[in-house]
């Protein structure tokens, strides 16, 4: 078993609050791995730790077997670890063409070039347009992102992550608040990612999780609660209790 991503006893404390508590997560290469858990379980904190937006209080993070615990966020992206955000994080003044153009040019290491125009490389331009077409954004290429409908923005959010050609992709609730049509588009695209791309899906929507994942980790109160195949998790009474308890309150 080759691990694409691994955490070793990861802790994160904010003052007295323990947001991650001894998390040792193992994500296999090429996995379709889902991370679920009730609200406030620390899922997004874990993603922020993995991508480097937060520094762990203790513990280590390994990407392809190499320690990246103290690596800067943008360098982790260069090593193939990319994420999407639960709440869209887009460039409101840029167009989808520019947005994806940026990601592709950064991936190709051209982002620091202050002389050449982004669109002047035909192979780069056609790659950018190709990505946007796959995501059904071809008709809004030159609109300002801020003016796009929510569903389109959500697609752009995912497209932007794909444009970095990640080897490990962290999807933080990709389908949250997305209308039905675009939901199918997102699921279709995520489903058709190359097999060697490792996907860690953080999701609330159980339908989606059970349709997609081949392995599920359940996070409760910042700690790994239980892990297993979807059938086993679905049958697990403790997981049901955690979730039903949560839904009963909500």
């Amino acid at each position, binding site marked *: 078993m080759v691990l694409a991503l691994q955490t070793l006893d990861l802790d994160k404390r904010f003052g007295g609050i323990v947001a991650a508590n001894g998390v040792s997560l193992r994500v296999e290469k090429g996995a379709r791995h889902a991370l679920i858990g009730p609200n406030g379980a620390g899922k997004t904190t874990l993603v922020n730790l993995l*991508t480097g*937006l937060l520094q762990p209080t203790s513990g280590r993070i390994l990407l392809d077997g190499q320690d990246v615990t103290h690596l*800067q*966020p*943008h*360098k982790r*992206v*260069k090593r193939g670890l*990319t*994420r999407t*955000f639960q709440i869209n*994080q*887009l*460039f*409101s*003044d*840029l167009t989808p*063409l*520019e*947005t994806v*153009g*940026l*990601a592709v*040019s*950064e*991936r190709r290491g*051209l*982002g*620091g*070039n*202050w*002389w*050449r*125009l*982004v*669109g*002047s490389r*035909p192979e*780069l*331009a*056609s790659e*950018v*347009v*190709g990505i946007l*077409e796959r995501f059904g954004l*071809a008709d809004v*290429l*030159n609109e300002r992102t801020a003016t796009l409908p929510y569903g389109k923005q959500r697609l752009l959010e995912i497209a*932007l992550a794909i*444009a*970095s050609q990640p080897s490990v992709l962290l999807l933080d609730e990709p389908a949250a608040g997305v209308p039905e049509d675009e939901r199918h588009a997102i699921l279709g695209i995520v489903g058709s990612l190359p097999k060697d791309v490792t996907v860690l899906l953080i999701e609330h929507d159980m339908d989606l999780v059970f349709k997609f994942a081949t392995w599920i980790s359940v996070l409760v109160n910042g700690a790994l609660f239980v892990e297993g195949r979807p059938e086993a998790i679905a049958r697990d009474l403790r997981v049901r209790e955690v979730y039903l308890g949560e839904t009963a309150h909500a």
Partner: protein
Amino acid sequence: MKAQTTGNARGRQLASAAHWHPLEILFWLAAFASYYLLPSKHLILTEIAILALFALSLDLILGYAGIVSLGHAAFFGFGAYVAGLLAKHQIVTEPLFALVVAGMAAMLLGFVTSFLVLRGSDLTRIMVTLGVALVLREIANRYAWLTGGADGLQGVSIEPLLGLFRFDMFGRTAHAYALMVLFVLFVLARRIAHSAFGLSLRAIKANALRATAVGVPVNTRLIIVYTIAAFYAGVAGALLTQTTAFSSLDVFSFERSADLLLVLIIGGTGYLYGGLIGAIVFKLMQDYLSALTPQYWPFWIGLVLVLIVLVGRERFSNWTLPVRRLAARLDRRASRAGRVTAEGR
């Protein structure tokens, strides 16, 4: 194959913003024509060109990278004094070369101080940039043996430009010189703004978190643009010294930094012409109003600013819509003609 071609055509739109728009060409033709058409206005036009270059510098960091500065005069002043000292002590006598050296000196200062603006919010940046300018001003004040202190740097004599063109008392050489420097540096800034680097700056300004998440080394890019902007500001300051053969402490003054922000507020940020247009409007307004009411002209400038903010730039740009439509039509026609000739070949 067909999809490939249309893909490329559309992708090229990424570069299309970089084509020179007819209005831009018109703008620069007018700027250069002013040299011949307004022979009695060389002095103020030189001042405008210098202010425009200075504003262009602030636009690079504010309009593109989103760094607010209230102490941009630090680099302007540093460039001004370096140019003055180079000429006074005859270290570098040829003005154009001295201009580059002074710009580089400001650039070095920009690089060193860029680390101070990396961290913190807009408010922190305002304070830090303001602080740097104040510190430099007091250093210049304290070391009077070098800088002349409060009396200013005197005894600066500027050699002929390229060894050929004397700086005459009508300001002809100064005007042409300032305008050429502005144009060259503008073209460079324009290129930078439309490059992949420029795109990443706009992304950082819009959302630094996400820029990081697509692999943009945010801090590195901010350091680079801050350093470039410091070069521009230093060159502007050096131009002032060279065209007036004098430099005083007010090159570092808070008012100079603050006026610069006003210039950009008037002209708008993030499209490079804002600083240029703002500089023209600001200087002409200042010139006209100070002739009208020598004491109270800042009152009117203040009033105009309040009006600009209240009315909002969007409404202003709605008023200019007919002009821009016409320009767009001209542009389309020009590009269609261009395509026909290209296909004919």
